């Protein structure tokens, strides 16, 4: 078997090495090189790009990315937890509700972001409606700000929160809730004292699964955030297009990847411990 197996794995090895790992290696090398006068690359080794990331301007962008991602994650939890709880308790229509949660996630990220542009812009549906009713005279600035970015991220990544929460709630023994009720706990008390602690791994998985893509988001802040709310993803993209500072863009990419991997490792280790 071993020989055939190695043939089976060979094509994916070839693709992963040449089109994923090698490109990452290229930006590792680039991040230690110097930017040329016309935007090219000069082979002069330096850690300048990494030191520049400590500049307050870029630390602000990093901090803002963390803040926006954290807000989006918290709102996803607030919105997603009751939804997951509801689905785990609905007996016959469970699969229907689950599909309703998953379906929009796979139908075009770009279109889903555009839908919010359509709703939020100055001549969009919300402003038009409010003007027609007569509540406002001038359109509210709903689009192109951090709030719109958070909204777009929650909308995009809510399924990532609901699915692990659902998986955890599904395994929960309903007798525990009855026991809590029999002992006099009110529904909300039972929720916070019984359900939430027992769903720890599911909640953590949801938090990580939403926070990671939000931290590295590019398209959502690009379309909904306008120029004012740049996140790390936009910074990286800009270095490779307009600013043409590839070493700096590479360094920023690697720092972002390192953050993502640290978060993943931390959550994996935590839950591995919980299992032991």
């Amino acid at each position, binding site marked *: *078997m071993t020989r*055939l*197996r190695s043939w*089976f*794995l060979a094509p*994916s090895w070839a*693709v*992963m090495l040449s*089109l*994923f790992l*090698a*490109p990452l290696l*290229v*930006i590792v090398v*680039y991040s230690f090189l110097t930017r040329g006068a016309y935007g090219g690359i000069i082979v002069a080794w330096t850690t300048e790009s990494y030191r520049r990331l400590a500049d307050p301007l870029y630390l602000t962008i990093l901090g803002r990315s963390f803040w926006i991602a954290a807000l989006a994650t918290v709102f996803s939890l607030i*919105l997603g937890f009751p*939804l997951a*709880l*509801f689905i785990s308790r609905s007996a016959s229509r469970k*699969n229907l*509700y689950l*599909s*309703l*949660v*998953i*379906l*929009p996630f*796979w*139908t*075009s*990220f*770009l*279109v889903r972001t555009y*839908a*919010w*542009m*359509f*709703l939020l812009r100055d*001549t*969009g*549906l919300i402003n*038009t409606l409010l003007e027609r009713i007569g509540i406002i005279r001038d359109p509210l600035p709903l689009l192109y700000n951090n709030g719109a970015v958070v909204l777009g991220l929650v*909308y995009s990544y*809510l*399924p990532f929160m609901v699915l692990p929460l659902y998986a955890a709630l599904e395994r929960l023994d309903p007798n525990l809730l009855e026991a809590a*009720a029999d002992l006099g706990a009110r529904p*909300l008390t039972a929720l916070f004292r019984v359900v939430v602690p027992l769903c720890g791994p599911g909640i953590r998985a949801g938090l990580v699964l939403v926070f990671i893509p939000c931290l*590295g*988001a*590019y*398209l959502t802040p690009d*379309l909904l955030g306008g120029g004012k709310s740049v996140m790390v993803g936009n910074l*990286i993209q800009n270095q*490779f297009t307009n600013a043409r500072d590839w070493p700096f*863009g590479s360094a920023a*990419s690697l720092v*972002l*990847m390192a953050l993502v*991997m640290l978060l*993943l490792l931390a959550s994996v280790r935590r839950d591995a411990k919980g299992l032991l």
Partner: protein
Amino acid sequence: MKRSGRMLAIYAGLALLFLHLPLLILAIFSFNVSPFTVWQGFSLHWYYAAFQDPELAESAWNSIVIAIVSTVASTVIGTLCAYGLWKRNSPVLSNSLYLSLVTPEIVTGISLLAFYQWIFRFWHVQLGMHTVILAHISFSIAFVVIVVMARLRTMDATLEEAALDLGANEWQAFRLVTLPGIWPGVIAAALLAFTVSFDDYVITSLVAGVDSETLPMAIYALARRGVSPVVNAISALIVFGLGALIVISERLRAA
């Protein structure tokens, strides 16, 4: 308890509305006569306009070609990979696949761009359909492996052993015993790969050349210029098209 149950149902209903209403509204207004966000009557005008636009037609064609080629390649490669990993895990390969899944798209995109540009120093080709297709194959494989692997885990490994005992060689055991059993999973994976390929904007826009504008790139350009009802019409078509593929894919995975 009953009251809190009803509260929960209302809350969950609102959350589901939040997930579906924006696209529903977008789809409804794609049938609006007026280009403004005021309903003035039903019309297929914007769909007609979308189909008449040569740039949109070309980019849609590019997207379809890219998605089909990369779907076929990544489904074959990913299915073989899942099978190999099912037999015996290779931690380095499966970890790189997971890493490719969690890497922010913008990082995947710029690293591919930097890599291509570096190769072009030695080999005089340019960005185009081929670079986009290679990028799509690369990021689709992990999705295929996960879906096919889930199917393989439901398979009884002793069936193949029985086939080997009865004189089949390894290839025949795979081809005649395991593959028919995981077939629904393979098709589901292919539909998923098609969807992620057809939909990708971030990576594609970075590694595309002048002749390889895709439909998401065209939509992005239109959306940037301001909201056009034509975009609503294409968006509705994409959502329904991809939505149908995903429903079929989910059915097959559950089958």
